[in-house]
């Protein structure tokens, strides 16, 4: 497993400006922790675009299909009811009345499926112990997680990070 050190920044813009110069010096940045979403950060440190909205679309299609099957089976195939003489023996004729239920089921499956996927993929679940290199990272500090496999180079790497805007460099739990 790789070893890491953590560079603390007090300004998101300073951190972002220093990502490129640090990388060109061979520094490997694993992740950046911030108290709020910083636009462009994910792109700068090389995260791919998330595909979670594609998941949502697929869940939505599943919800829509389930509702189509349900309404067709219950009201057309299994037990057609003559309600006020309205057409209820052919699916396409009765479909307009089913649209609200189909719509709600689509949204239900898309929204919940997406949120559950988000929680699972981000390992954000009840009972998970948080990875907190510095407690100020949810308040007003920005923490850069840097790979440091050779601990003899730690001092050198720390100096480089300090030169590039970090206000402090530390190890996990220290």
């Amino acid at each position, binding site marked *: 497993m790789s070893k890491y050190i953590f560079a603390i920044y007090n300004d998101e813009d300073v951190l972002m400006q220093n990502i490129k110069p640090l990388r060109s010096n061979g520094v490997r940045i694993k992740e950046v922790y911030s108290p709020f979403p910083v636009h462009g950060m994910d792109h700068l440190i090389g995260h791919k675009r998330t595909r979670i909205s594609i998941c949502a679309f697929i869940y939505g299609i599943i919800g829509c299909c389930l509702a189509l099957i349900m309404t067709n089976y219950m009201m057309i195939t299994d037990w057609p009811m003559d309600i006020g003489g309205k057409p209820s023996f052919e699916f396409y004729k009765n479909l307009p009345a089913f649209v609200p239920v189909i719509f709600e089921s689509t949204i*239900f499956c898309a929204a919940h499926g997406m949120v559950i996927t988000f929680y699972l993929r981000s390992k954000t679940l009840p009972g998970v112990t948080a*990875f907190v290199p510095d407690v100020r990272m949810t308040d007003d500090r920005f923490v850069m997680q840097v790979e440091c496999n050779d601990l003899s180079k730690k001092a050198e790497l720390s100096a480089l990070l300090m030169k590039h805007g970090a206000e402090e460099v530390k190890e996990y739990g220290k």
Partner: protein
Amino acid sequence: MYEAPIREPLILGDKTNHEITEDICRPIEGKANKYWWWCFIASVAALLWWVFCVSITVGEGIGMWGINNIVDWGWDITNFVWWVGIGHAGTLISAVLLLFRQKWRLSINRSAEAMTIFAVICAATFLLTHIGRPWLPYWLLPLPNQFGSLWVNFNSPLVWDTFAVSTYFTVSLVFWYTGLIPDFAVVRDRAKTKAMKFWYGTLAFGWTGSSKNWQRFEEVSLVLAGMSTPLVLSVHTIVSMDFATSILPGWHTTIFPPYFVAGAIFSGFAMVQTLLIIVRKVLSLENYITTLHIDMMNRIILVTGSIVGIAYITEFFIAWYSGVEYESYAFINRATGYYWWAYASMMTCNVISPQLFWVKSLRTNITFTFILSIVVNIGMWFERFVIIVSSLHRAYLPSEWGTYHPSWVEVGIFIGSLGLFFTCFLLFARFFPVIAMSELKTITKSSSTQAKRAALEHGHTHAAHH
């Protein structure tokens, strides 16, 4: 994103990110003051009264209410529609204003969403008591049952309502909770006591704020907002169809969906004003929920109030213009018949009073806004009462004519539901971060007083560099 330096700041008082954390966590970390306790005791008392009145309804039956064979929907459905409508503003603020990139939503979305959740819970309690046998609510769901292969009727707006309200409630709940997770993590990382660390650590689900998680978080928020927008419109559309698909004069109109949605947003924003004007004072959040926020919400109240006013007048005109004598009678009877006082209250509170918000000094006056927000909600309650009771008490045949007066049990359930709502809201204000601080911190560099001052001095905002 560029923001004009002359535009008023959204965060006052030169707040740094750390000060924002301090200000918003203070009410959670400190002790509750005496105002909170007094409000809480009063709310719990009303809640106990609700338990008592609901117990009587469930134990003795719906006969304890004033509804009868002629007016068979009374305060129960009036209150259901009123509460669901109030809920709509929370979704409008968090979803629609997110899609429109309105940054002023950031200080108010959290409490508005909480209001949505609690209002929908209150609405659901009216449906449960209204069905008379609240231990059988699963009859509303399409489940295989012991009565042969009889299913729910998917042609019925009441079944659409089951789907719409349950989807709306659960989606709003996860939207709200997902937004809360980063803020729970803030409280967790500041916690001084073991208990705080444990509880907020559990609630935070192990959130760290890595850029990958923020990237997903933002995508999830955006897509949820995109789905919640048609969802919230569909909910009150379907509620309006509970009425509009019937053939009763006064209910059988095609303008109901847009008219109900506008009314819902109108009453919901009024309730947000009522709550936030108290919250900003009691929790000292005047630097975050500013006069600008109140002004913005008042503008929405003005717009939606005007839509509601136009809808009332259109309804009246069409009743005459259609030439249907039953329809004309229903509307003339609303204005001049047995329940004229309810109609007059509705017209005064909903059509005339919001027009006062054309005046800027009134829109930015906090006391006036507070009073008017309550007036609007009284008006919107009367709107539902007028629609339901005045149409039902004079149907087609004179043998279907009658009157309706609520019993003390119905009144008690309504007052009790306010107790339920405020008990939930006070607990929320005590234990949860009432402002989405993690999201609010995204605008300290573009819309705080210090950023605006710097922008005026240098001719641009800091954020404009990027």
